[in-house]
């Protein structure tokens, strides 16, 4: 099915199942431990051995020698794989560095060897006996130092390095009120609960991978390319994923090394990456340095808006696209954005929840707060005044839907914004300085081709098969809701099977495109199944209604089970997209509100309450969507207050590579969260009229927190995370 004209009324609009706050259908499996994650898969060939990866001890240079003799002689060891005996390997399109290093070392903890043994403990003990000699090379590890060498990045996924409209320099110079500020965001780790894990098994030349992966088809392709085998020979199974946040969009060392280990050991091999590898062996969100310049008239109209961002990555890598939202979020006739990419020899940078917008809004939305203060305006009024209903770089493109102002005003009322003191440092509650902050949320909507197969059996059960993944987001449930709505059956008559490359290729989970795209694919397949049912009964699908487990047309009513008969019916289709996303700018919007208390003596910052108001198209399942948004708000609070991969600029690695050192929020950090979804349907996105929310939820949160800290203390911190050491100098004197 091709989606190239805005949706009209369709069976989804019945909203009997869609739009209802439905419990996750995979919930009981997860809470009872019955959902097998990659490392726990039970339906695998017997006799699996265990692999433990050895990571490079240097960030850049060469492996002079690897001595595996002691490790080979250790108890239980079956085989050891290194670049020297792994055969020729390619590199996947989505990998920047090689997943098995040697002789060249590209980053710290790059895999250099795999030890396979009878037990996990034996493999780990033997891995400690592998001795590697290195020749260190000088690397670049300091983004600030590398700024001057940064160059415009190659266009990737349609993003370009520089944009310009009007005459920014002249307008900025002429503006009566200006802001020119520099902000930094640190490297972030996905820090998902489940580490990357894979079980690999070969049957002849056919490989099966049970793994934790967000993008099944990408990863089959990359694994085939890396191993130099046909894609058809690989089956990748990833039904349950314990968090990904972009860290599992690609194959990583666990998958490749398990495949190589299984081949060498001639047995299935299981590997889970140890926690320190999540920081240094896998990908992370790259740090940014951002310069924002705003110029405005005295009454607050933006006349010049400029956003520059610098980030670094390994040679051949990509930038953190932190200026993207600034091209779209606020009006202003004179504009410039610029991205620069430096070569850094730190571990590979890549996508993490809302890449681009998450760190971009961390800077932009502080800048907006600062500018509002300079103008003597309320920060909400300032944003509303500079709203735009068209793409400000291409005014002929309207936003398909844009309710940013409504998000801000709804939130202001609900949160009690009027009680905020415009003067910072003015509110106190015992030993706590208190303050409120706001920020806009913005994340682009992306639609991606997605296919599904649906089966109808004689019991009237609809089974959906698609390689879509559920990374804890609720994909199982919204897909079941979609099929139930389309076929007119209750939820318990739908079975959803996901995450298997044997199923039709879906959009996968990433970029918050999963919910709308994958359900649209199921919509297309169900539309075909409806036709098949009607055709089998000699009815016209267009006139038929699918209600209560029956197809009804005129005075005929046939149960779906009966229609399917013993043979059952199968339909498969995919949703493809025309150019609506070019004609309309499709984005999601929100407003984040936060109240903090800051200990007047110690500077400890504690969030008191948070509110998000989101306008993101049709909300397919308000309960799952709320969970996504509160999770994202929590992650945003982490980015605001504590998350930072600390770089050792001498040795080139992330030092705090465990969950004791890389702090993410705990329950005590997140006392009260509320989420409001504005009523919205977007007919330009798909027949589902939905968009994503999972990434929108994090966008702007950190700035709302930082702005609240400023409002509480009068101390403006422009370098994340906002930690107490950065406040101490500006807090009130103590007795």
């Amino acid at each position, binding site marked *: 099915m091709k989606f190239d004209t805005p949706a009209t009324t369709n069976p989804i609009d019945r909203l009997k199942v869609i739009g209802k706050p439905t419990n996750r259908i995979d919930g009981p499996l997860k809470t009872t431990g019955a959902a097998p994650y990659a490392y726990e898969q039970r339906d695998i060939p017997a006799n699996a051995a265990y692999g433990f990866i050895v990571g490079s001890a240097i960030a850049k240079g060469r492996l002079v020698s690897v001595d595996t003799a002691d490790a080979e002689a250790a108890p239980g060891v079956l085989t050891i794989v290194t670049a020297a005996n792994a055969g020729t390997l390619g590199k996947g399109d989505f990998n920047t560095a090689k997943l098995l290093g040697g002789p060249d070392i590209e980053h710290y903890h790059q895999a250099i060897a795999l030890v396979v043994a009878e037990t996990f403990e034996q493999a780990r003990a033997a891995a400690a006996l592998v001795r590697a000699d290195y020749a260190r090379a000088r690397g670049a590890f300091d983004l600030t130092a590398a700024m001057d060498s940064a160059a415009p990045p190659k266009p990737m996924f349609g993003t370009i390095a520089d944009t310009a409209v009007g005459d920014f320099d002249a307008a900025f110079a002429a503006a009566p009120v200006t802001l020119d500020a520099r902000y930094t965001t640190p490297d972030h780790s996905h820090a998902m609960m489940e580490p990357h894990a894979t079980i690999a098994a070969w049957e002849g030349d056919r490989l099966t991978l049970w793994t934790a992966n967000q993008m099944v088809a990408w990863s089959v392709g990359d694994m085939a390319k890396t191993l130099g085998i046909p894609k058809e020979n690989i089956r990748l199974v990833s039904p349950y994923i314990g968090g990904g946040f972009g860290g599992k969009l690609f194959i990583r060392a666990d998958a490749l090394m398990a495949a190589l280990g299984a081949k060498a050991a001639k047995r299935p091999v299981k590997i889970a990456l140890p926690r320190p590898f999540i920081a240094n062996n896998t990908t992370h969100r790259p740090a940014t340095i951002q310069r924002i310049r705003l110029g405005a008239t005295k009454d607050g109209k933006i006349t010049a808006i400029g956003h520059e961002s610098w980030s670094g990555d390994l040679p051949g890598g990509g930038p953190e696209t932190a200026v993207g939202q600034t091209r779209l979020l606020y009006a202003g006739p004179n504009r410039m954005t610029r991205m620069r990419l430096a070569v850094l020899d730190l571990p590979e940078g890549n996508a993490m929840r809302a890449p681009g917008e998450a760190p971009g809004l961390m800077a932009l939305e502080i800048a907006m707060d600062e500018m509002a203060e300079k103008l003597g305006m309320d920060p909400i009024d300032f944003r509303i005044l500079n709203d735009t209903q068209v793409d400000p770089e291409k005014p002929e493109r309207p936003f398909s839907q844009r309710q940013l102002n409504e998000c801000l005003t709804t939130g202001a009322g609900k949160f009690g914004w009027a009680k905020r003191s415009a003067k910072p440092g003015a509110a106190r509650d015992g030993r706590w300085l208190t303050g409120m902050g706001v920020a806009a949320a913005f994340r682009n909507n992306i639609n991606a081709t997605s296919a599904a197969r649906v089966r109808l059996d004689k019991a009237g059960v609809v089974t959906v098969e698609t390689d879509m993944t559920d990374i804890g987001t609720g994909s199982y449930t919204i897909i079941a809701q979609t099929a139930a709505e389309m076929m007119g059956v209750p939820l318990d008559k739908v079975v959803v099977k996901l995450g298997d490359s044997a199923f039709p290729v879906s959009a996968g989970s990433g970029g918050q495109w999963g919910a709308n795209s994958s359900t649209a694919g199921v919509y297309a397949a169900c539309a075909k199944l409806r036709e098949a049912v009607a055709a089998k009964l000699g009815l016209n699908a267009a006139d038929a209604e699918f209600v209560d487990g029956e197809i009804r047309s005129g005075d005929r009513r046939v149960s779906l089970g009966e229609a399917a008969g013993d043979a059952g019916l199968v339909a498969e289709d995919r949703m493809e997209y025309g150019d609506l996303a070019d004609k309309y700018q499709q984005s999601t919007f929100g407003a984040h509100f936060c109240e903090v208390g800051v200990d007047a003596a*110690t500077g*400890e910052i504690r969030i008191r309450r948070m509110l998000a108001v989101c306008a993101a198209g049709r909300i397919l399942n308000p309960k799952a969507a709320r969970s996504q948004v509160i999770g994202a708000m929590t992650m945003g609070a982490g980015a605001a*207050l504590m998350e930072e991969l600390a770089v050792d600029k001498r*040795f080139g690695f992330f030092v705090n590579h465990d969950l004791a*050192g890389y702090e993410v929020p705990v329950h005590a950090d997140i006392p009260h969260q509320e989420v409001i979804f504005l009523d919205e349907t977007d007919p330009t996105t798909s027949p589902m009229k939905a968009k994503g929310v999972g990434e929108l939820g994090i966008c702007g949160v950190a700035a709302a927190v930082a702005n609240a800290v400023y409002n509480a203390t009068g101390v403006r911190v422009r370098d994340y995370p906002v930690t107490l050491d950065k406040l101490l100098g500006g807090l009130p004197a103590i*007795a």
Partner: protein
Amino acid sequence: MKAFTYERAATPAGATAAFAKAPGARFIAGGTNLLDLMKLQIETPAHLIDVSRLALDTIEPTKEGGLRIGAMVRNTDLAADARVRRDYGLLTRALVAGASGQLRNKATTAGNLLQRTRCPYFYDTNQPCNKRQPGSGCAAIGGVSRTLAVLGASEACIATHPSDMAVAMRALDASVETVDAAGKARAIPIADFYRAPGTTPHLETMLEPGELITAVTLPKPMGGTHIYHKVRDRASYAFALISVAAVVQKDGSGRVALGGVAHKPWRVEAAEADMPRGAKAVASGLLAGATPSHDNAYKLPLVERTLAGVLAEAKG
């Protein structure tokens, strides 16, 4: 983790005798620190002597009017003990500020005192670390040191001791009771228990190899207001950036010990004479001789400010 053998000791004498037969062995109590370090190949004992079931898990009054806390009393039980809560509130507050409920259920009094540093470089066997591998150097000096020591450090090591409980114990003048392989018992005042890092940061306490902690004793209650303020970036489940343990009497006199600033709980008795004069005066004595790095210089004003907050709270 290196493969190891294991035995369970039935009595303290059995435990020390077992050590005599297997030098280089380790006692294991709750295992919440030791096992993590073994998994990461930081500690590699060939033999473990399990002391967790020794009958050292009671809290008894002493004839001096204090309390004798068995070495195997779990952190949870110690924090909850009615006498501790009444007379040594500082200790309860320090304990519950540490780790998590599950960990405190396992962690023991002795193990807590002997937990090892959280210096991030200590945890990465690729990095030089004098504490982990004597003579290899110190990666933390000149590296990432936001959490590390500002006092008492040496050119060989700038690690901090991470325990919250020990800071309270120091303020309360606790004493560590031990027995060695020859059956000889001794009591080490907590003030003398931890060694300065000097050139041998791998030697952390005055315990001899195989010496077993049997109890920690507290002197008789000293009254006053007990406050433990642990400062950290997140609200719970994090080690202290710094902590202040204070006992403040009605007349403004009192005691202060600091956590998160040195290789041991930091207390300067002479500085306590300034308590009635306020935080600034006390802090200048407490922090004399500090050697902060660029990353951790904030700890000095933070100590002073936190202490000021604590003194204000004590006043009510």
